[in-house]
């Protein structure tokens, strides 16, 4: 085996995938070629060291995000499903029949509605309708927030204003956007949208954590404004750590000092 042939076998050597004959040939070569032997040992040491790097785990938010998008996708498909095509021969008869029935049912419905006019039932129907609308808004918001395009995600943040303040799924998605969205504009819009949820201790805590980890000075400044606007005195320790850190952007540091003066 030549030195060039050894290089062709290094990948198998590292992965432990050499056949017995090839392994023997390689060892024979190493016995009289110190350069190849040393290179193989060095590369094997690097290869082994790679195996010692920690195995990172995804955050707990990933799983619910997936299941929400799966559900939204399935519902979207269901909604887009075309009506089954009817046989043309019966089409005119069926349509006439349906039209007649619809008109009859409408008249009966109106009469019965007027006579009975049960307000309680009316309220139940209205509540159900409102629930459905809320659910639809939630789905649209969550689905938009997971789009590839930043402008679609911005639309998702905009839609978040239409859901109820008690909607924890949208709240989680907005908090995720503030900390992890690759686009700074989406992050800034999500910070604004979270003003409605500012009374929640979970929101405050999450934003305090995000403030320290943010890589965008603009978002950090927006978060400090948020904390001052909402009189979040719990943010003092996060602001102090920004003030002390030598890695923080100068403008952010000045803003943190200002924030501390407002909250203390």
């Amino acid at each position: 085996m030549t030195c060039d042939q050894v290089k062709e076998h290094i990948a198998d050597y590292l992965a432990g995938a050499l056949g017995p004959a090839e392994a023997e040939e390689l060892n024979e070569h190493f016995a009289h070629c110190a350069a190849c032997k040393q290179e193989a040992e060095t590369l094997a040491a690097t290869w082994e060291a790679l195996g010692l790097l920690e195995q990172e785990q995804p955050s707990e938010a990933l799983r619910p995000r997936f299941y929400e998008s799966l559900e939204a996708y399935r519902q979207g498909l269901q909604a887009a499903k075309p009506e089954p095509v009817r046989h043309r021969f019966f089409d005119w008869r069926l349509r006439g029949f349906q039209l007649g029935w619809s008109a009859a049912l409408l008249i009966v419905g109106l009469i019965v509605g007027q006579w009975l006019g049960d307000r309680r039932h009316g309220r139940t129907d209205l509540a159900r309708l409102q629930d459905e609308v809320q659910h639809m808004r939630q789905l649209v918001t969550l689905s938009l927030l997971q789009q590839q395009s930043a402008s679609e995600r911005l639309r998702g943040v905009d839609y978040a204003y239409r859901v109820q303040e008690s909607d924890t799924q949208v709240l989680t998605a907005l908090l995720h956007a503030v900390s992890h969205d690759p686009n700074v504009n989406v992050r800034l819009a999500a910070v604004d949208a979270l003003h409605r949820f500012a009374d929640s201790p979970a929101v405050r805590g999450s934003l305090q954590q995000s403030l320290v980890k943010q890589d965008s000075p603009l978002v950090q400044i927006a978060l400090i404004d948020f904390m001052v606007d909402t009189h979040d005195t719990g943010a003092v320790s996060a602001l102090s750590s920004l003030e002390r850190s030598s890695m923080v952007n100068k403008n952010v540091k000045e803003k943190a000092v200002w924030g501390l003066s407002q909250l203390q």
Partner: protein
Amino acid sequence: MPETRADNVIMQKVRDGDLAKMAVLFERHHRALFRYFTRLTGNHGFAEDLVQDVFFRIMKYRATYRDGSPFTSWMYQVARNAYLDGVQKRKNETPLFEESVPEPASSEPDPSEILRRRQDLGLLRRALAALPVEKREVLVLSRFQNLKYDQIADILQCDAGTVKVRVYRAIKALSQIFFELAGEKAS
């Protein structure tokens, strides 16, 4: 990652309209995909977005999955496309890896001795980040994702011999960067 026949069967069911089975594929593969993207991008948030995107693409393009083709290779092809598109979209945003490529060290200490003595995983992580992405990718696939060379060849759409050469070049480049960093630190 062992290729299971069950993955192929499940993917066929997804393709034929049983979208609920996506949950099985997600539970089996999302961690491996997350690690793949984390090693490639060095950014957890971006890696999670890409994992999400891969499963969305699998649903969207499920009709393109062919009977009997290995699911894992197909999934990583989808993952590569998601990664390339994602990087393209992020072009003007925050850089993914903060570490810069090191300057070569002036003196050259004994490489194997340094590695044995220090086992400095922080330096190794920086060296991996400094590696050009095509080299990092082939190492990630072979070392971290435990894929066989013929599977990687399917994903990269080349032959297994080419993959082996690329692995050799990548691990050699990684070692060089590592020892340059170690030399800088020592000097």
